[in-house]
């Protein structure tokens, strides 16, 4: 057997998805990772697998892609969990919803304010932009929704797909940042009537500050902001406390973070940041999913190295015969090279994070269209890329 560079794999333990999903203590699964790595698909596949193994699961997605709704057999997804039709005899159940930031925010306001005040807030131009385009609102509202669903008790497993944040850290930081801001000095400063004691507390430079704020933001904007803040503050109070509660919910052992990546340099680097950050914040990390990889299936193909294939291809090309075999050998040589490249990248990541649990999902030849392909991905998550028993992770790196 020829041994390639993949052999030095730090023999990472396999992420056992079924054990995770079957454990009734697992109540929340959070999928995070860089944009474009398949977080949403992974979340949907995990939700489906959990449902088919007897859980009552709900998937919250932030991805407005129609394709996901279609693959779940739902016409469209909105802010209310919709039942997904599963085959007769399925033990559990699956619901899916797409986060609507504005709707979620509106609901929070309506729930906490008397009707008149709610009306004022909802009509404020500042609120309207806050609820749709505030940086951090999507993250905050995803967590808010998570909290709501958790509290409703209607589901015993919630799978969350996180927003495609600018950076790996936004998702964890944004709720607190928003909370900090809404509870912060600036808000108190803005909501205090001018020329009162509040200004004196701010120390030197306060008059300069008021003039700057007026000059830059414009007095009208400041008025809107002030009335918004006053209305908002009395409704909420303790936004910070809310954010902290969510943060603690995430740290709960019933939560499992799944970091999703594809085997390329950028996505694995982002995944590396996530793993470090989750570890630092004591967030329960279940493991890493290496998505859309290109393992070679078991069998004769795996034993044929890139060099052997290239050599054989050269023989045929020299003879000018068998163009089909020649083409197939070229294709195979490239597949082996791709696999070796992926294995190198993955091994580098794993050597930096020893002991992390890993599941690998092979790229499907076609995009995900339906429940069947989500089921295939779920099975790959549980069983490894080639569906082989045992540690397919380790064996897939030998040729």
């Amino acid at each position, binding site marked *: 057997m020829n041994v390639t560079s993949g052999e030095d794999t730090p023999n990472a333990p396999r992420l056992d998805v079924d054990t995770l999903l079957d454990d009734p203590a697992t109540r929340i699964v959070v999928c995070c990772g*860089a*944009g*474009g790595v398949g977080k949403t698909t992974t979340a949907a596949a995990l939700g489906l697998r959990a449902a088919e193994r007897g859980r009552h699961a709900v998937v919250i997605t932030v991805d407005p*892609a129609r*394709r996901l709704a279609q693959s779940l057999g739902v016409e469209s997804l909105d802010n209310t969990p919709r039942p997904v039709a599963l085959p007769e005899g399925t033990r559990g159940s699956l619901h899916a919803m797409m986060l609507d930031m504005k709707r979620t925010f509106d609901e929070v306001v309506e729930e906490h304010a008397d009707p008149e005040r709610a009306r004022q807030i909802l009509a404020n*131009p500042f609120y*309207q*932009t806050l609820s749709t*385009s*505030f*940086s*951090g609102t999507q993250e905050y509202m995803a967590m808010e929704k998570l909290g709501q669903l958790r509290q409703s008790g209607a589901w015993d497993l919630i799978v969350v797909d996180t927003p*495609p944040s*600018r*950076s790996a850290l936004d998702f964890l930081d944004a709720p607190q*940042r928003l909370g*900090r*801001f809404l509870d*912060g000095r*600036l808000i108190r*400063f803005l909501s205090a009537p001018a020329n009162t004691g509040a200004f004196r507390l*701010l120390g*030197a*430079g306060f008059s*300069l*500050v008021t003039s*700057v*704020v007026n*000059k*830059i*933001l*414009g007095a*009208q*904007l400041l008025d809107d902001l002030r009335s918004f803040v006053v209305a908002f503050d009395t409704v909420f109070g303790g936004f910070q406390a809310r954010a902290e509660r969510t943060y603690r919910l995430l740290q709960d052992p019933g939560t499992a973070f799944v970091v999703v990546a594809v085997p390329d*340099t*950028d996505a694995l680097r982002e995944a590396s940041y996530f793993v470090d950050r989750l570890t630092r914040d004591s967030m329960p990390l279940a493991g890493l999913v290496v998505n859309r990889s290109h393992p070679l299936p078991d*069998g*004769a*193909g795996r034993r*044929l190295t890139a060099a*052997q294939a290239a050599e*054989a291809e050269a*023989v*045929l090309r020299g*003879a000018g*015969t*068998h*163009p*089909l*075999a*020649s*083409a*197939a*050998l*070229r*294709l195979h040589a490239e597949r082996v*090279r791709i696999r070796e490249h992926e294995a190198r990248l993955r091994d580098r990541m794993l050597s930096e994070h020893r002991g992390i649990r890993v599941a690998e999902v092979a790229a499907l*030849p*076609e*995009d995900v269209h339906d429940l069947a392909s989500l089921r295939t991905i779920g099975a790959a998550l549980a069983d490894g890329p080639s569906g082989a028993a045992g540690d397919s992770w380790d064996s897939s790196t030998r040729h």
Partner: protein
Amino acid sequence: MSEAEFGPGRRSGSPAGARLHIVTGKGGTGKTTVATALAMALASRGGRVLLVEVEGRQGVATLLGEPPLPYGERELIPLPGGGRVCVLAADAESALLEYLELFYGMRLAGQALNRLGAVDFATTIAPGLRDVLLTGKATEAVRRRSGARRRSAAPAPFHYDAVVVDAPPTGRIGRFLNVNTEVAGLARVGPIRTHADRVMGVIRSPQTLVHFVTLLEEMPAQETRDGIAEIDALGLRVGSVVVNMVRPPLLEEPDLTAAAASGEFARDELAAGLRAAGLADAADLAAALAAEVGAHALRVALEHRTRERLTDLGRPMVDLPWLEGGVGRSALEGLADTLGEQGMGR
């Protein structure tokens, strides 16, 4: 901003005529790589180009193997023929402090605001302001002229021949570029409004093109279609569709068609070929390779369908090859040449 400020505009929609290039695409399609290669292509033959990164990811530095870049325009990519690419990793907070100092001489005020959390507010929380500041920085570089402006004579030449923005992904690009509308609802008058109007003047001018990076996969292509519709609806100009990571055809069309149609590659013929090449175990090997070819044929058929639907958009399309072993400086030069050959260069 009027056309006059930019000099006579060349053919609308032509990459060569534009001076502000916004590069967007679904996450994972290689926006940063394409933006960098485009900046290099535009700087070929002695051009001076600014590459602006706005996502705070330090993707350009990583791509070039440089440590994280501090705030400031730094010449990072010298090119043969005297061309230069400067890189700016823009962050909203530094842009705001710079803005305060430039326009108001308010360094101290900036510090006071910082203590209050107002900078945090403006840059991460205030609606649209972050995008106003970042697009403001990019458009300022577009308008900037070299040397002192003389009153009577013709205006001094532009400092940069072109500015390329490694922009937010397609999901956020409309909001990012359309800051004016966001801000207009909040700041109906005042300096912020004036600033936003000036930014939109550049973005709405024929000098600005929005390019979409995609892969030959359904989701990125769908986002490209949605993004183009959105940019069109906003009245902004769509430039090229850059199809990234295109793999060279490994099999001839008839072979692929045969493989896809029968679902089974001509296994006997394959086994005979493998035997002729001196490989042992030819029958088993033929079965394995047939499966590989079958999967490949499915993928290629999907790529064909995806490309057809992208072609239907009727936009200029540019292909960039898939690069084995990642992207470094020399690979970037190759990509820049490829862009130049397909009409996206200087």
